[in-house]
């Protein structure tokens, strides 16, 4: 292992060090602030290192892990999201008693799993990364040990994720049997040239597709989503919604790039159907739903459906469209769950829509930001969500994927119907005694509020600068990612 290898692996090394540091800190002295601080420091330091590391990129460390600008970009995205989750968790757990420090340990490890995933070029690293990402999540979902629903969610997640991992492993075994290789590009190459025996290869891909679909919560692998979203503590939910799905999308995107930006026709049909099903199922289920976390779960199902549209449309816009949509989606999701975490107190989280009525009069900043996030999720102009959708439409129209575009249009309309009433809810003065304590917003700590606000600023001000020529850095990263294959 030479020095370039070490540099390339620095993000993983740093996160490992941070994990050990948090572990040691817990064993010497239990301090919530210290644990959260060390975690935040670990994420920040790693994030800040990324530009330096991009100088050695692209650099394969062993045949299974590639450090390139593509991976680094997504690493940055995941690290930023993890940092926000850390802040949310700090605000959230500060008002709660009991053992809280271990949460950060799990968070660090799970984020590390995400980093492994975005750099993986090999089935082995894919599996390691996925498990490293998932296993801590089981505990994180069940972290509210005294809440029945949290434990139930953890158990469901554990069982179902176990099933999906089994599918993944079997799929990998089939691929290896068919191609004799575990390297992505090699497998894809053999698949294209037709050298490999086709049945095991296709079966393997299908089974891996099951695992990917499970992680991304695509219909029909989506059933776990609402229960887990609802049961898990809000910071965990935000992590599941962003880091976990983001890492998986990165893997998909890498496979797409390795395949040269082409998806075989047979796959297009089935994935189109799944995308359309996801959109409709997510939106329809969210329609009459009264629980905000479940609404967001369903909405995430439909959003991943939208995301698939960009893939399926293919072409040169796809990478840009997927990346932009994912980023906007992550920011918005973090924001919404951040607001939920922000408004939580010892008695629980504000889950029902009614809990938010009159929010504007109790906490105008939170209400304004929440509305902003919801509007962005619905894709209202001037928000990131709008530009993300614009990309999807552009990508779809470019490739005349009219069925997909039609579903996208219909679902955007249903999504619109879905979200703005929430905003209206904020302003209506409620006569009912609200579950949420009026001072709830004040109690649950500044960091959570600060990062919610940060997301808001990004949405409004950050976006005009994102589109390509005006952000050369991102563009370069994407381009080099594109050309490095």
């Amino acid at each position, binding site marked *: 292992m030479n020095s370039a290898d070490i540099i390339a692996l620095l993000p993983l090394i740093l996160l490992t060090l941070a994990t050990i540091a948090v572990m040691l800190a817990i064993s010497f002295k239990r301090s919530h602030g210290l644990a959260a601080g060390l975690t935040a420091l670990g994420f920040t330091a790693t994030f800040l290192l990324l530009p330096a590391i991009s100088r050695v990129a692209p650099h394969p460390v062993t045949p299974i892990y590639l450090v390139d600008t593509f991976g680094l970009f997504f690493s940055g995205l995941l690290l930023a999201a993890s940092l926000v989750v850390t802040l949310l968790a700090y605000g959230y757990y500060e008002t709660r008693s009991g053992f809280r420090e271990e949460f950060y340990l799990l968070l660090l490890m799970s984020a590390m799993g995400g980093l492994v995933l975005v750099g993986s070029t090999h089935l082995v690293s894919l599996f390691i990364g996925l498990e490293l990402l998932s296993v801590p999540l089981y505990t994180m979902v069940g972290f509210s040990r005294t809440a029945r629903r949290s434990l139930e969610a953890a*158990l*469901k997640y554990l*069982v*179902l994720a176990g*099933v*999906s991992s089994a*599918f993944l492993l079997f799929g990998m075994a089939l691929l290896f049997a068919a191609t004799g290789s575990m390297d992505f590009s090699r497998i894809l190459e053999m698949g294209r040239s037709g050298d490999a025996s086709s*049945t095991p290869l*296709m*079966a393997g*891909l*299908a*089974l891996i*597709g*099951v695992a990917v*679909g*499970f992680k991304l919560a695509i219909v*029909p*692998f989506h*059933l*776990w989503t*609402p*229960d887990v979203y609802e049961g898990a503590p809000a910071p965990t939910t935000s992590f599941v919604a962003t880091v976990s799905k983001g890492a998986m999308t990165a893997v998909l995107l890498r496979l797409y790039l390795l395949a040269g930006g082409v998806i075989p026709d*047979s*796959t297009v*049909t*089935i994935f189109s159907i799944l995308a359309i099903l996801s959109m*409709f*199922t997510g*939106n*329809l*289920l969210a*329609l*009459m739903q009264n629980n905000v976390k479940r609404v967001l779960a369903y909405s995430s199902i439909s959003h991943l459906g939208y995301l698939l549209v960009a893939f399926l449309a293919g072409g040169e816009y796809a990478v840009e469209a997927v990346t932009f949509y994912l980023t906007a989606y992550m920011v918005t999701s973090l924001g919404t769950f951040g607001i939920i975490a922000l408004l939580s107190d010892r008695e629980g989280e504000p889950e029902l829509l009614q809990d938010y009525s009159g929010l504007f009069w109790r906490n105008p900043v939170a209400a304004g930001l929440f509305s902003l996030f919801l509007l962005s999720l619905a894709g209202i102009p001037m928000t990131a969500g709008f*530009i993300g959708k*614009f*990309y999807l439409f*552009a990508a779809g129209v*470019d490739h005349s994927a009219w069925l997909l575009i039609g579903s996208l249009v219909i679902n955007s309309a*249903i999504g619109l*119907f879905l979200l703005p009433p929430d905003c209206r809810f904020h302003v209506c003065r409620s006569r009912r005694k609200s579950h949420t304590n009026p001072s709830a917003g004040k109690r649950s700590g500044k960091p959570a509020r600060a990062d919610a606000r940060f997301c808001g600023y990004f949405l409004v001000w950050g*976006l*005009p*600068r*994102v*589109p*390509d*020529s*005006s952000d050369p850095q991102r563009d370069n990263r994407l381009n080099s990612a594109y050309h490095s294959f």
Partner: protein
Amino acid sequence: MLSLLWLVPTLPFLGFLILLLFGDRMTKTLVGIIGAGSVGLSALLTMVIGYQFLASPPPDHAFTQVLWTWFEVGGFRPEIAFRLDALSLVMASVVTFVGFLIHLYSIGYMHEDSSFSRFFAEMNLFVCMMLVLVLGDNLLLLYVGWEGVGLCSYLLIGFWYQEPANCTAAQKAFIVTRVGDTAMAIGFFLLVTQLGTLQVQDLMHKAGEMWEPGSGMAVAATLLLLGGAVGKSGQLPLQTWLPDAMAGPTPVSALIHAATMVTAGVYLIARTHALFALAPSVQFLVAVIGALTLLLAGFSALVQTDIKRILAYSTISQIGYMFLALGVGAWSAGMFHFMTHAFFKALLFLAAGAVIHALHHEQNIFKMGGLAKQLPVVFWTFLIGAGCLASIPLITSGFYSKDAILWYAFSSEGGSIWLWMAGLAGAFFTSIYTFRMVFIAFLGEPKGHIHHRPGPVMLVPLVVLAFLALFSGFIELPHNFAPVQMFSNLMDTVFHSHGHSHEEHSSAALEGILQLTAGIVSLIGVAAAYFLFLKDPSKVEKISSTPAGSFLQGFLLRGWDFDRLYDTLFVNPLMALARINKGDIVDSLYNGLASLTQMGHYRLKWIQNGAVRWYAAGLALGAVILLGVFIFT
């Protein structure tokens, strides 16, 4: 300094934000300081920028400031950019400076009002939007500003919303201008799709390259733009909203419905003058509309009794002059009249407001009378404004600007003796109705009781505007007077060769004769007003008491019965349709869609039953489907 251009619209916007958020908790003094101060600073900045622009002109006599790109997708690249050239400089200067004086005046005028901060918030927003409109570099910003001022106009006409009539007037203004706005929006779409750019300058350039003069595209585009312009500027056939818009507070009428917003149509045509030059037939139509409007509105102004309605009709008529100028290709003369009109009409409105304020909201001129002695400053400033409006020869700015229009209406390529005669007749009626107002309201026997006298905060803007109204004419003298053509020289940097090719085939002597005629006509008008309304009003009464006379009076009073015509033609049929369709047939489609999706929800709900075995079965089912599809296709 030019790079501070973005601050010019931003300052009033900040004022708006502050007043919107914290206005309720501020004292009236603070509200006044922020409301007037933000526009004042903006005016100061505009002056400094304008000075620098004139002293050391940027290349091409235009400065573009790109603030940021909104987004860029597939070659569509709307920029947030401001452009300063001679045209937008003149517009922005008038908007900020006259706007500032009116804001200052409003501190006194609106002082008793309980919604003081709301008033200034909306006024500040208006100034911001107007600046966006005139400074915007592309159609998108232009449109934002255009609709923004429309919104503010709506809000401010209905400012006293407790009175249902005011709300009706506000709605009328909004809906009638909307008719034009829709045409304009379609025109914009046409331009963007045909020429492929949002940038106004690029559009003009490309239109010149791609479209033959008189081609169908150019005619269609300019006709649609003209639709927007006549709506906003209260020209035929969409002029009906402007007299009713006087329901707003008088400073609003002065700022929005006299000096600035209603001239947006003039600005739009001037800004896209290259397009209109490609469609000579439409350009001629502009002149005809202007000539007809100035006559029609002038007649109506003759019989009005409400001082603000007289001024409103005179505004319509004066904008008619501007359209006439644009229609004959005298771009710079049209803009010059815009400027002088902004000064003297704002002055007239503010002075009328001072009278209305003093007489406790009395607007009928026949209940005024003898105000000259009671309110001397108001009288003299009003007289100066009236002199400018009636274009009293040599000493008033109105004479110079109107004379330029009349001259070009006669002599330019697009002009004709008919247009000139229409303008001349309009000038005659203008001076009659103007001095009718002066004689009846300010001279004669006192009839009303003065409640409160205007304080200095109201008088200072009057005096400043009176000064500007008198002397702003001297920066642009007729060619046969003296070689002082500062204004048109400045404007030539925007309009280039357009509009000035006609100077050769005209003689100084002819110009002199026409000027003399115009001057005499306006003086005769004043004299006629004196004999008819001050010396011996019995004759007028005698005529108006005859059946034909009273019918004519009522007909003109109602603005040629356009309202009744439109009610019969459009409003009533539409209302009848609405009544028939009370249940809304179209809605049932959407309601059906909504219940369909709702049904979908209930049909789907059962899949989320919370049982892990069912969820795992879902996974397995998915796996089977995927396997099947992957293996067998």
